[in-house]
């Protein structure tokens, strides 16, 4: 138990500290690297509460894919970041407002648990009885069996958003020469090479 508590404080403290570093680091690449550290520590926290599937998915999706693209973009950007930071304070009210709303919502949720302890019972009711099933199995049961239609429609919404983004940014440029793989594969030696006997001293 002591070791678990120690691990919790280690992960939690590192997560919060790296979260602070994300917004305070001068170099944007460092910010992204700290963001990755924060993701990693959150995954550690997930493992501690026994949600190992979520922990691994967090690392695979956020650290392995999303953060790589972040890093990619931030490295390629050629922006003077000290100039960008000049207007930092001007966004402070909006940031503070979002923070306050989030805090209020969290207080509402946790407050309701304190006021009526049976609320957690209702929350955990849809999952399979604890023990005997791994949480991967329990999640699969919930997402792909009990709530399959809701899950699939959420997926459709994402698909539509993705196709929308592609449609908005795709431009067909006629002036670009494109590679046609099928033409290249179909190309035969007989079509393009001709062997001729040339007498010495004359042209083709």
């Amino acid at each position, binding site marked *: 138990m002591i070791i678990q508590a120690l691990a919790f404080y280690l992960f939690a403290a590192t997560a919060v500290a790296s979260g602070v570093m994300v917004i305070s680091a001068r170099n944007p690449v460092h910010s992204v*690297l700290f963001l990755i550290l924060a993701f990693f520590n959150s995954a550690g926290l997930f493992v501690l509460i026994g949600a190992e599937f979520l922990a691994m998915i967090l690392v695979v999706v956020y650290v*392995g*894919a999303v953060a*790589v693209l972040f890093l990619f973009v931030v490295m390629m950007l050629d922006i003077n970041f000290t100039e960008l930071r000049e207007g930092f304070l001007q966004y402070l009210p909006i940031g503070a407002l979002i923070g306050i709303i989030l805090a209020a919502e969290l207080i509402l949720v946790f407050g309701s648990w304190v006021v009526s302890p049976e609320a957690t019972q209702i929350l955990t009711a849809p999952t399979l009885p604890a023990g005997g*099933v791994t949480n*991967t199995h329990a999640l699969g049961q919930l997402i792909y069996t009990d709530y399959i239609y809701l899950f699939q429609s959420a997926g459709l919404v994402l698909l539509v958003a993705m196709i929308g983004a592609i449609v908005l940014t795709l431009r067909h440029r006629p002036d670009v020469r494109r590679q046609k793989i099928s033409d290249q594969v179909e190309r035969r030696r007989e079509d393009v090479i001709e062997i001729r006997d040339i007498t010495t001293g004359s042209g083709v």
Partner: protein
Amino acid sequence: MVDFWWNYAWPTLWIVIQILFLVVPLLIVVAYLTYAERKVIGLMQLRMGPNVVGPFGLLQPFADALKLMTKELIIPTGANRVVFLMAPMLTFILAMVGWAVIPVSEGWVLSNINVGVLYLFAISSLGVYGIIMAGWASNSKYPFLGALRSAAQMVSYEVSIGFVIITVLLAVGSLNLSDIVLAQKNVWFFIPLFPMFIVFVISALAETNRAPFDLPEAEAELVTGYNVEYSAMAFALFFLGEYANMVLMSGMTVILFLGGWLPPFDIAILNWVPGLVWFALKVSAMLFVFLWVRATLPRYRYDQLMRLGWKVFLPLSLGWVVLTAGAIVVFGWYPGIVN
């Protein structure tokens, strides 16, 4: 005091001993893999390979290690020091921590976790950070180009690796690596899932940045790419990390498709051979394939690499997921359902 020893100190010590028993042989394997590569490719090209240091050149890896350790570590002036030094360490550490969940024989595994495959997938998807950090921190053209190529390449091939893993999972019904091996008691998965086996092996080549997909270090145009600015031990860590990753990916292939520690046929005489020996033999065979491919094939062009990843492997593996799932539902071959 006695309480403290039995409750905390001894378990910690025991874990450390187990880790050493895994990591030390692994490092020796990695060292001799570099030797094997030079020897195998040498023989394939009708050369001798290393043959001067020790009998048959067997002490060559140690000579190389000594040389690299005694050299000077140069940090370029424009480099970002912390990130520059962190990158090789990260590459090497990530190649090592994957082994925490690999079962080398029945019950011989450091940590037999429920989500073993996902853990391996997560760790192998992190490998890109070592390279991308090295490329950026070097603050130099060629390393940066190498890092960008490598990031795009590794992210692309991860997608099809993910789908291949899902096919195997559908056939097993568990994310635990030991369960995956035991599910292959009757038939190794490379027979029913043969196309996925091929996709996985090729993606493993791309994921470890090995020939014919070694574009991140393409010496002809990028003068070895992301590790140009590295010297001495920092360079050696990249090198060892790459080879350790090869061993890890071979181990993954063996567990997912080649029956892990199981003997090829379930007969007594083969069962007497310890599982570790079978596992080591299969991993060696896979590593030989890695070296063989390098000696045989020329490097891919970059656009062909991307086309292969996104337009060939992705639809193929996705289609095979659907096919496998369909076959399981139609024929009722639900594996190990616990309802």
